[in-house]
């Protein structure tokens, strides 16, 4: 029955062995298809089972399609289910054959058993074959009106499936409004929840083309509807509760009493057995109280216990997800959790990804009162069998030391680590002692005494070796043997594989030389010679630089290499607070687990609700939908461009901000070209040409060392939403939260000054550039404005404070932005708009 070509479609490697069996099955199915003998269902069932198990292991059984459909005319529900499963799997690749199944599925949709009606409807909608959508509308319509709630539940999801196959068919049949009616009136909460999830998706997708859909979507987060859901929340299934709670986070209550009402209503959700419900509730609480500082703190106290219980009672997978969220909260408000530090103690059996998070939290919650216990606990982990965790815990001790004022006890412990004679413990501890000394130079005496006893031969890890060498250089006046240790290290120059260590060695020998010249001189000579001959560009360059600066003037060299140092007060944080805030806004999402904001890891098309853009594109149904998508795409590409240029600038900036000594790699090439000459010049320093060469070299070096000015691409297109809306409360809240992205002073043209007699004049003008005013005031000559703008089709806001003085014709502008990286682009838009003010 099936065309023979079908059987050759298979890509499966196991196909050859399955081929004869498949044709065997085909024969047997054909025999059974017409039979009405008693017990035929049982043998059919065995055969179907076989077919599906082949399907599961990846053998292509699509050639049996016809026979399977013929056999499915039965009253046996299990047979039907298996057949639906089969059909659902292969209909998409065999659209012609799918037509065959429509008939029997449609018939089943009118079966007297609601279970069969529901299953048939579900399978019908799961066929997902574009040219069959016409057959879906009828059964779906009657399914939505079915007297049985099971069928209605299935039908509602079916509408969403239909929408993804063909949006226009779904809208033309007026299904969205039917769903809306069901959502507001159906007694079964599962149906309400399914309607909600379907309508959210449909209206969000339609919102860009239809104003009505946009209005409807807004209505979902209106007060009456939210209250309608909240009042019934206990009747919803746990998963539907998650959905409702997610919707509630988008709702902005009008006043604080409403906020308290909602929180009171939802408080018992924190006790729910399902962790997903608890986290969704926590998110609602946190979002609602963002603008109320005091209550926000109380919320932290309230949610603490349920979250901690989730951590300790769930499976490792669940506790990992909860811990990631807890981690976020702990980082925001460590003091709230500081008395619960014992919850973050690691258990032996926990997977290391859980332990790692816990160690970070222990570091964060450490304060004056619990440091001692925490450090004691961490020290026990240092002897842990799990070496990566042992290392992490030593690092954690160091971090705590760096953030505390009273480091007495901690230093002792770190020094004990050094005596533990475990290579990785020593290594980690050395790095920490170095950091500690940079922050608390007053401890140098104690530390140096211990560090001096460590044989450099026992330290192999580059980072630790570098730290040791740094200390040898920095404290060479206090360490008796420093010059000699350095000398022996220089002697083994060739065996040192890490460039980082060699760089540190050069610097350390230099420092030592300034403190104890007679003892170090020979080591310095050897180090410089070895360094200049080094194949690594940075090492070579640094050695050369030292050599030349020494030749130029020794005291200048000392000022450069060994300046008086100030203790480091705060070490830079690895994660910016902006990113942390952003992740916090995305609480209860994957972003939290990755510790990255979603824009950093999800593809743009996946940020919103599921977009079946590519599929729709292939099927090219509904001209309108297609166009919308393509236009969206273009815009997103623009945005992408924008992001990438901004990111490039950022990375370049940071590479230039590195160590003072480090010479940017960019400059290496030309120096390299003249390297041989320079080397020969150095080997006989009396050559006349040398100084010329050298100075040229240095100039060259410095010249190229200047940060390369990145080519500024043509200003990226930023499109603003002409109908942006933001309520004053939200504005205030945002203004408080966001950091200032840009601050600048702009000049106004004389015409502008002349036109600005009342604030309103500027308001109208800016509005025509899609920049809206939320508040304004002042009298000539001083005006103050608060503007906002919204990115086109994206809820990304720009907030502007603009203070204009007409006598000086200057405008002080402060810009804050949700998406910091486009703030520059927005700023130029704003400037452009302002400069046009007053011109006719």
């Amino acid at each position, binding site marked *: 029955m099936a065309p023979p070509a079908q059987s050759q479609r298979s890509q499966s490697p196991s196909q050859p062995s399955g081929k004869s069996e498949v044709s065997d099955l085909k024969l047997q199915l054909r025999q059974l298809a017409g039979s009405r003998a008693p017990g035929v269902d049982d043998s059919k069932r065995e055969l179907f089972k076989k077919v599906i198990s082949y399907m599961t292991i990846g053998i292509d059984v699509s050639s049996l399609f016809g026979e399977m459909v013929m056999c499915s005319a039965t009253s046996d529900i299990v047979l039907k289910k298996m057949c639906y499963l089969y059909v659902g799997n292969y209909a998409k690749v065999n659209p012609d054959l799918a037509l065959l199944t429509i008939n029997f599925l449609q018939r089943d949709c009118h079966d007297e058993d609601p279970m069969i009606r529901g299953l048939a409807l579900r399978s019908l909608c799961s066929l997902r074959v574009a040219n069959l959508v016409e057959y879906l509308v009828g059964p779906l319509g009657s399914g939505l009106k079915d007297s049985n709630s099971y069928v209605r539940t299935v039908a509602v*999801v079916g509408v969403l499936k239909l929408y993804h196959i063909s949006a226009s068919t779904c809208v033309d049949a007026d299904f969205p409004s039917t769903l809306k009616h069901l959502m507001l009136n159906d007694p079964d909460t599962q149906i309400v929840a399914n309607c909600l999830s379907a309508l959210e998706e449909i209206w969000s997708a339609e919102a860009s083309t239809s104003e009505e859909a946009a209005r409807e979507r807004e209505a979902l987060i209106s007060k009456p509807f939210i209250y309608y859901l909240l009042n019934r929340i206990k009747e919803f299934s746990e*998963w539907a509760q998650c959905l409702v709670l997610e919707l509630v986070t988008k709702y902005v209550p009008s006043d604080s009493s409403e906020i308290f009402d909602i929180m009171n209503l939802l408080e*018992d959700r924190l006790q729910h057995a399902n962790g997903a419900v608890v986290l969704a509730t926590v998110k609602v609480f946190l979002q609602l109280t963002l603008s109320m500082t005091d209550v926000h703190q109380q919320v932290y106290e309230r949610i603490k216990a349920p979250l901690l219980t989730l951590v*300790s009672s769930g499976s490792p997978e669940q506790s990992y997800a909860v811990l990631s969220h807890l981690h976020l909260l702990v980082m925001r408000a460590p003091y709230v959790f500081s008395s619960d530090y014992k919850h973050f103690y690691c258990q032996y059996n926990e997977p290391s990804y859980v332990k790692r998070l816990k160690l970070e939290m222990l570091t964060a919650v450490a304060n004056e009162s619990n440091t001692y216990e925490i450090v004691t606990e961490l020290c026990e982990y240092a002897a842990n069998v799990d070496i990566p965790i042992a290392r992490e815990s030593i690092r954690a001790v160091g971090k705590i030391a760096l953030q505390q004022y009273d480091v007495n006890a901690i230093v002792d412990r770190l020094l004990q680590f050094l005596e533990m*004679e475990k290579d990785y413990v020593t290594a980690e501890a050395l790095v920490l002692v170095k950091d500690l000394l940079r922050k608390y130079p007053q401890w140098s005496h104690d530390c140096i005494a211990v560090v001096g006893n460590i044989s450099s031969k026992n330290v192999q890890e580059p980072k630790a070796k570098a730290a040791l060498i740094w200390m040898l250089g920095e404290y060479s006046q206090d360490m008796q043997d420093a010059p000699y240790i350095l000398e022996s290290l220089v002697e083994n120059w060739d065996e040192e594989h890490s460039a980082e260590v060699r760089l540190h060695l050069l610097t350390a020998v230099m420092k030592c030389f300034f403190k104890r010249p007679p003892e170090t001189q020979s080591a310095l000579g050897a180090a410089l010679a070895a360094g200049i001959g080094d194949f690594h560009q940075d090492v070579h360059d640094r050695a050369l630089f030292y050599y030349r600066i020494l030749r130029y003037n020794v005291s200048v060299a000392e000022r450069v290499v060994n300046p008086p140092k100030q203790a480091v007060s705060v070490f830079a944080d690895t994660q910016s607070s902006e990113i942390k805030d952003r992740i916090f806004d995305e609480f209860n999402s994957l972003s939290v687990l990755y510790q990255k904001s979603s824009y950093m890891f999800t593809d743009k098309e996946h940020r919103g609700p599921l977009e079946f853009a590519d599929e729709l594109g292939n099927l090219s149904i509904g001209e309108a939908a297609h166009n919308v998508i393509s236009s969206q795409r273009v815009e997103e590409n623009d945005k992408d461009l924008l992001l990438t240029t901004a990111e490039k600038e950022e990375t370049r900036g940071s590479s230039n901000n590195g160590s003072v000594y480090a010479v940017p790699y960019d400059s290496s090439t030309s120096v390299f070209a003249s390297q041989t000459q320079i080397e020969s010049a150095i080997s006989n320093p009396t050559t006349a040409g040398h100084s010329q060469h050298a100075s040229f070299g240095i100039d060259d070096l410095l010249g190229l060392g200047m940060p390369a000015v990145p080519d500024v691409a043509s200003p990226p297109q930023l499109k603003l939403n002409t109908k942006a809306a933001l309520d004053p409360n939200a504005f205030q809240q945002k203004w408080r939260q966001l950091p200032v992205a840009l601050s600048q002073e702009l000049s106004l043209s004389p015409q502008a000054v002349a036109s600005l007699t009342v604030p309103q004049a500027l308001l109208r003008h800016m509005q025509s550039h899609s920049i809206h005013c939320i508040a304004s005031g002042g009298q000539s000559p001083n005006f103050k404005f608060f503007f906002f703008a919204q990115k086109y089709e994206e809820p990304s806001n720009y907030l502007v404070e603009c203070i204009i003085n007409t006598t000086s014709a200057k405008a002080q502008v402060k810009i804050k932005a949700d998406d910091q990286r486009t703030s520059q682009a927005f700023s130029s838009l704003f400037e452009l708009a302002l400069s046009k003010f007053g011109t006719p």
Partner: protein
Amino acid sequence: MLQCIFLLSDSGEVMLEKQLTGHRVDRSICDWFWDHVISQGDSFKSQPVIASPTHYLFQVVREGITFLACTQVEMPPLMGIEFLCRVSDVLSDYLGGLNEDVIKDNFVIVYELLDEMIDNGFPLTTEPNILREMIAPPNIVSKVLSVVTGNSSNVSDTLPGATGSCIPWRAADPKYANNEVYVDLVEEMDAVINRDGALVKCEVYGEVRVNSHLSGLPDLTLSFANPSILDDVRFHPCVRFRPWESHQILSFVPPDGEFKLMSYRVKKLKSTPIYVKPQLSSDAGKCRVNVLVGIRNDHGKTIDSITLQFQLPPCILSADLTSNTGTVNILGNKTCSWSIGRIPKDKTPSLSGTLVLESELERLHVFPTFRVGFKIMGVALSGLQIDKLDLKTAPSRLYKGFRALTRAGEFEVRS
């Protein structure tokens, strides 16, 4: 929303594939996943949520079976993980355990279950009671029944009526000749004892498990003698929140059969029922081990199945350990396991012997953590006591049963 669910065997073979949305997920994702797992060494160590180049993957491993779900959109992570955990619970409940064979034998049931548990990527019903009404489990009883009644379908004839009722967890009107309700307190003690023998952390995680076979719509109230000791509680959806908030009374209409009514935590306990005193002293490339185990507080109940396990550090070449009670085994992965059973009246169990270190090592620097197991019947170590259980409109014949049990959870002693 979830787009696809795969079940993988412990060799990485795809046993089952369930596409949930029109956005088909190619099976090749499993190959990527399996390579990733292998590169991580141990699947236990790889994170539950990982990002593949094309999808975000949730994985939950139970009994060697990997439940893998894929999505491309941002979603609440716990929803994915929690759902997979439920799937594994429901399957193991239905199939009487989880392993490769049982899933392969019953894959039709697994498909049927998944079909009802999730539609279009959104979880629907995970309540075992309701699922049981829609799809009969393949147990012996139903097989026997089907032979007797001649009804060979394993789908029950009744409809999923509960989905429409206002008590979604309870099937409509079961009838029992003997009305019975059993309440079990099951507690697990988590404790950490540090190197100095001090109790760093000791808390109890407990569950109240109820097995109810009651006719009609029973309305139960359960109260505790000392509810104030409970630190944080989580309830089954059937528990009404207000009575608990005002009077610490559990008022509920129970699901039929077995379920977890509530879970709780009791923090800051002062003592453990048994003590473990490890002593390790190393000298000249050898380490002498001596571990004593004994009863600290007599609760009047016997402590059963006491076990002690620890991982020998990798730097140990050989171990010679003997005990005066019970048996000592050193397993292939250098895990030493000492099963004591009950503590005899006349002597204190002790484990002693020597560990031989790697040749260049003088002393032992990595210290093992001893994990302790025990079981005490008839007592809840948190001290929680059930005051009474009442049934509104009690049937004529009602049997109420109470039990308590405490086990060691994560009970570890560091040396």
